[in-house]
């Protein structure tokens, strides 16, 4: 896969997004300048520890963050050239499901328990494609067929509790694909599923890109999944992007100490390791962020220079937000 983002204008460009929450401890900043690009037909992965801001990044693209407690404090989210953040609410709403769709982590709770599957798939089809009557059913059966639920197994009258987790996630993907969106955001769509089903769902996502040209922003904390399906990867830490680049480059030669730590904590099949390494320390709380580089307290390379906000170093195809990037880039970690 070529790096599409560099040749054609990107499908999605999140630029320096800053997001705050109002909480009882006062306002906290949960995203401190996040920039992510997704090109046409590209699958981009976002990885990072729990709480680093992956889901809220996705939800701000969708415009689904809780109103009232959330505040965008800066940056822009451009989708095919339009800034979503300045779009009127009605237009923004109509883009959901039609241009940008989302698949969530929990297939068990993400479907309405008291509405037949058919009605749930039919909703976006009626709303965005303007189809009526039998055409809606036809289209719904078509989409289900594409996600591996054959027409012969008509599940339209069934309720969610009658389906397995894997089937429900297929239904969720069918709902996302129903209006042929340009971008699908998948927030850990396989985390709640067992391994064999996981593989099938990943295959489905890749197939959607290959046959419909859908761009995909894929959130996970599993580097194995990233290696399998993503063209590019974005590594996030504590509300910031610390490293981006082509998947093969980042995974074969990680430049940021945090990415290196993530790689070392990954079980590998070919080398027998005594025990997995973990990154020492824990993720800082939102209201207690270290100044300068946020990874500094956990980083073995850190020195006093790291108390200043690190620059973004461009090394080959990789962008690394670290003072030591050039110094340590030669270090090879197996």
């Amino acid at each position, binding site marked *: 896969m070529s790096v599409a983002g560099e040749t054609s204008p990107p499908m999605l460009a999140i630029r320096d997004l800053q997001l705050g929450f109002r909480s009882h401890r006062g306002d906290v900043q949960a995203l401190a300048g996040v920039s992510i690009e997704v090109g046409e037909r590209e699958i981009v992965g976002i990885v990072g520890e729990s709480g680093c801001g992956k889901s809220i990044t996705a939800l701000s693209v*969708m415009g*689904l963050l809780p109103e009232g407690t959330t505040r965008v404090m800066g940056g822009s989210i451009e989708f095919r050239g339009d800034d979503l953040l300045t779009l009127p609410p009605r237009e923004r*709403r*109509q*883009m*959901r*499901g*039609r241009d940008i*769709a*989302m698949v*969530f982590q*929990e297939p068990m*709770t*993400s*479907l*309405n*328990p*008291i*509405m037949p599957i058919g009605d749930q798939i039919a*909703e*976006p089809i009626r*709303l*965005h494609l303007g189809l009526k009557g039998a055409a809606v059913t036809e289209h719904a059966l078509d989409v289900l067929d594409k996600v591996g639920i054959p027409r012969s197994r008509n599940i339209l009258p069934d*309720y969610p*509790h009658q389906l397995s987790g894997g089937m429900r996630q297929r239904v*969720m993907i069918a*709902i996302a694909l129903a209006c042929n969106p340009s971008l699908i955001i998948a927030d850990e769509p396989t985390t709640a599923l067992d391994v064999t089903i996981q593989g099938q769902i990943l295959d489905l996502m890749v197939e959607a890109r290959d046959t419909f040209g859908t761009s995909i922003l894929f959130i996970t904390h599993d580097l194995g999944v990233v290696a399998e399906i993503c063209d590019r990867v974005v590594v996030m830490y504590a509300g910031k992007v610390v490293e981006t680049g082509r998947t093969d480059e980042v995974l074969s030669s990680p430049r940021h100490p945090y990415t290196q730590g993530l790689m070392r904590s990954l079980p590998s099949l070919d080398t027998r390791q005594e025990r997995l390494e973990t990154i020492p320390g824990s993720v800082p709380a939102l209201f207690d962020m270290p100044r300068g580089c946020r990874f500094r307290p956990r980083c073995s390379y850190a020195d006093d220079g790291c108390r200043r906000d690190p620059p973004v170093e461009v090394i080959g195809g990789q962008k690394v937000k670290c003072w030591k990037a050039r110094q340590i880039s030669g270090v090879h970690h197996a």
Partner: protein
Amino acid sequence: MIFFIMRRLITLLPTLIVPLFLVFTLLHLSPGDPAAVMLGADATAQQVQALREQLGLNDPFLVQLFTWLGRMATLDLGDSIFLRMPVMDAILQRLEPTIMLTLYALTIAVVVGMVSGIVAAVNRNGVLDQVSMTVAMVGVSMPEFWFGLMLIVVFAVEFRLFPVAGYTPLDQGFWACIWSLTLPAVSVGLVQAGFIARITRSSMLDVIGEDFIRTARAKGLPSRVVILRHALKNALIPVLTVIGITFAVLMGGAIAIETVFNIPGIGRLLVNAVARRDYPVIQGVVLFMALTFIFINLFVDILYGFIDPRVKNQ
């Protein structure tokens, strides 16, 4: 669905036994000889003996119980001592005003309660939320008869918009009947609306936080559709339970409110029967109310099955 309803009907049988037994023992738990109590102080010994015979009080307890249950099975509630007519007829005669009042009040309670509960939930912590929840709070802590009296003073005495009391039967026209019941229905209905508003709000807030609501919004549905089609229907189950209870409370509340507004319904029948110690009527009315309560609960249970497909398979 048929099986579901059948199962519910069968599990209902034990709940029927309990009120039947309680109502029967009502007569025997009262202090003294019920026959003597009913006839009053200046009855002769012969009169008392005759009434004991009529009521079957001279038979052994179990014989009395089964005779009574047998009569109940054929819907024979016995005769009123005072009204000189079968209890069943007395109840049927007074049924219309009570049913009309209860349904009217229930409509007010459900419409006002659910609408303000939904509005409050959607505008959580906003001005509308605070206003409607404060009003609901005041509503539920207000005695219905007092509220009824206030309504009479303001709308009947001051503004002369509604009659002070009394009931216009249905056969004199539906709207005339409704008009005559407006003040009593509002006084009990609005108080119950407070309960329904609070449960609707909290149930809606629970559902709005669920994942599938986020899915519905991710489809691009307008928020009106998300709220009404996805959230409300899911929030309905606890609300329905409260509506079922409200129905029963409204029937009970009819006793006080029919007296305040002088409406010739079941409640007045009961109050008068108690005043005259007319035991067969008391038994009949209490039994009638208990059965109505049980059947409303059955109806609510069956409605759950229609709303939530998971209930049927349990």
